[in-house]
């Protein structure tokens, strides 16, 4: 502990991201540049930063532009670099972000190029970069003139072509030598909007009909009976039965985690990293009489578990605690089954959270693997002999997946990997465990699963 020597209450200046101009396109570019800057400078998730625009009439446009720019960030950055007299690193972060946002729009939107350039110049004024408005204009016009040559220069290196950091390209290439480039492409694809149906309340056929009546289109996920993909993305409130709690938004891979635990009514089950509650909901829909404990270390995120379960009309015991600390919350009765969806690099969900590519560092992986190992050990102590545990991550890096489980199995004589319950999901054997990669047809997010069993005393190897 230490005590305060001098008071230092300096607050960071608020970044101006919202102007009063009538030019909507400029407003969108300005807001998106603000989001991109905050995400990259402060290391926050785009979803988190977007919260400030929750009520903005251009919310969807801002989100699309900001996420698109983050998806192609290193490419946009490399495209403007030769046009700047200073290096991008020496350019003010907000100006650099605005230029990248504009270049992304010039490359990917169907708006007339001229109007995008003038919107970007106006956006510069909106965000307080009035002095740089001329520079924005000059850089973007030169970009349009030299575009073909600039783009061609980026095509040779996979890291540039697919806008991934080099370390991640190297990791993925060595982990998935037969399909790493397809994986890089899949990371830049737009993710599907996947729903989980509560089959106790609505059948798949019924729900497809209801979608159609609402003017929407649904498509079944062939390998998972609870999953439906909405082909035209829509605000969740507009989805039939969403308010009623019979439908949730959840990727098919996350839904599969609950299914692989195969919960049975009456069992005592722990969802060890529960927030925001999607998997808890999935478990309770598979076995409504489950005695479920939903644990998370973050009180605010645990609140979202409560909110989600309330919407679903399901109940679970909620615990806010650090899984790896002494389990003061625990009543001492061992669990029949535990779902551990451990915190991870989230490299399997880059298509949903493109900023992960730039915020995640190579050095994080080792620390995450250590934490995952400790969490697995903590869970094991809460699991009854004969009980089962599903270890899952949304990572596609073996260091956080098969390596963690292999080490755990080697260090725990009473732990065995077991066959997952029958399923039709297109999983790849990762030995130990199973991997979903995001590029498979109707595939879910990148996810890893290992089904473990704690041997009962006397049970032979």
């Amino acid at each position: 502990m230490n005590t305060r020597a001098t008071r230092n209450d300096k607050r960071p200046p608020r970044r101006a991201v919202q102007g009063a101009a009538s030019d909507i396109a400029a407003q969108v570019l300005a807001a998106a540049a603000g989001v991109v800057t905050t995400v990259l400078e402060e290391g926050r998730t785009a979803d988190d930063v977007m919260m400030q625009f929750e009520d903005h009439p251009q919310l969807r446009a801002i989100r699309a532009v900001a996420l698109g720019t983050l998806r192609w960030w290193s490419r946009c950055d490399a495209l403007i670099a030769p046009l700047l007299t200073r290096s991008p690193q020496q350019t003010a972060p907000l100006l650099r972000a605005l230029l990248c946002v504009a270049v992304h729009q010039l490359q990917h939107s169907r708006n007339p190029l001229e109007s995008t350039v003038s919107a970007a110049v106006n956006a510069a004024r909106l965000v307080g970069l009035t002095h740089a408005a001329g520079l924005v204009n000059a850089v973007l016009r030169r970009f349009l003139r030299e575009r073909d040559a600039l783009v061609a220069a980026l095509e040779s290196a996979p890291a540039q072509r697919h806008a991934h950091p080099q370390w991640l390209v190297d990791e993925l290439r060595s982990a998935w030598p037969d399909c790493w480039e397809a994986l890089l492409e899949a990371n830049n694809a737009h993710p599907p909007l996947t729903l989980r149906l509560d089959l106790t309340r609505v059948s798949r056929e019924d729900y497809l009909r209801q979608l159609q009546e609402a003017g929407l289109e649904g498509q079944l996920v062939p390998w998972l009976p609870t999953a439906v993909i909405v082909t035209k993305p829509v605000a969740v409130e507009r989805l039939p039965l969403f308010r009623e709690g019979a439908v949730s938004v959840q990727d098919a891979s996350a839904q599969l985690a609950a299914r692989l635990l195969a919960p049975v009514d009456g069992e005592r089950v722990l969802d060890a990293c529960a927030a925001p509650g999607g998997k808890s909901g999935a478990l309770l829909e598979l076995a409504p009489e489950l005695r479920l404990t939903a644990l998370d270390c973050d009180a605010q995120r645990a609140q979202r578990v409560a909110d989600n379960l309330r919407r679903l009309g399901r109940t679970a015991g909620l615990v806010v605690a650090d899984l790896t600390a002494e389990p003061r919350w625990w009543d001492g009765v061992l669990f029949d089954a535990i779902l551990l969806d451990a915190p991870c690099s989230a490299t399997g969900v880059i298509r949903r959270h493109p900023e992960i590519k730039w915020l995640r560092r190579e050095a994080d992986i080792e620390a995450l693997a250590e934490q995952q190992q400790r969490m697995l050990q903590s869970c094991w102590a809460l699991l009854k002999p004969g009980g089962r545990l599903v270890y899952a991550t949304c990572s596609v890096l073996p260091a956080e997946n098969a390596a963690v489980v292999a080490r755990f199995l080697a260090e725990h004589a009473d732990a065995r990997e077991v066959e997952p319950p029958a399923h039709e999901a297109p999983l790849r054997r990762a030995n130990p465990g199973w991997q979903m990669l995001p590029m498979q047809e109707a595939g879910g997010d990148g996810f890893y699963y290992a089904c473990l069993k704690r041997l009962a005393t006397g049970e032979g190897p």
Partner: protein
Amino acid sequence: MARLEILEFPDPRLRTKAQPVEQFDAALGQLIDDMFETMYEAPGIGLAATQVNVHRRLLVMDVSENKGQPLVFINPQILTSDGVEISEEGCLSVPQIFEEVQRAERVRVRAQDRHGKVFEQDLDGLAAVCLQHEMDHLEGKLFVDYLSSLKRDRIRRKLDKSRRAQPLSSSRIPTPVA
């Protein structure tokens, strides 16, 4: 003597639960001396072994004005506590951040000294607060855990920002399940 590296939030190793000290040997004595040096140099008024990446149940403190009252608590246990004290705490593992935390005002602690001898001691005021703060470390707990997660995230970001030159720490990116 050597100064030790202090782990900084949100380093996941700070979340490790410490194991009891069993060997009261020369290596333990060396560790205690190094921890004092590290604490005085920082400067701080308390340091738990967890903070220097040693996951054993021991902590050192000195809350005196003139830095002349070093205290060592090995395998500490709080026997009784009462009263409420709200004070501003800082932590060598969460540099530059000071926030108000509520603790017991008085505690009676049983612990062992560097030779393994059991003792009991009553502490109050800053010493009581400091002891509770350091004992939390041994459970993998930080004073920022008492704050709202909003505030904690802000702190995490602030620290991330101030260490921009270093690699970003492993702040969790939530998995996208709605």
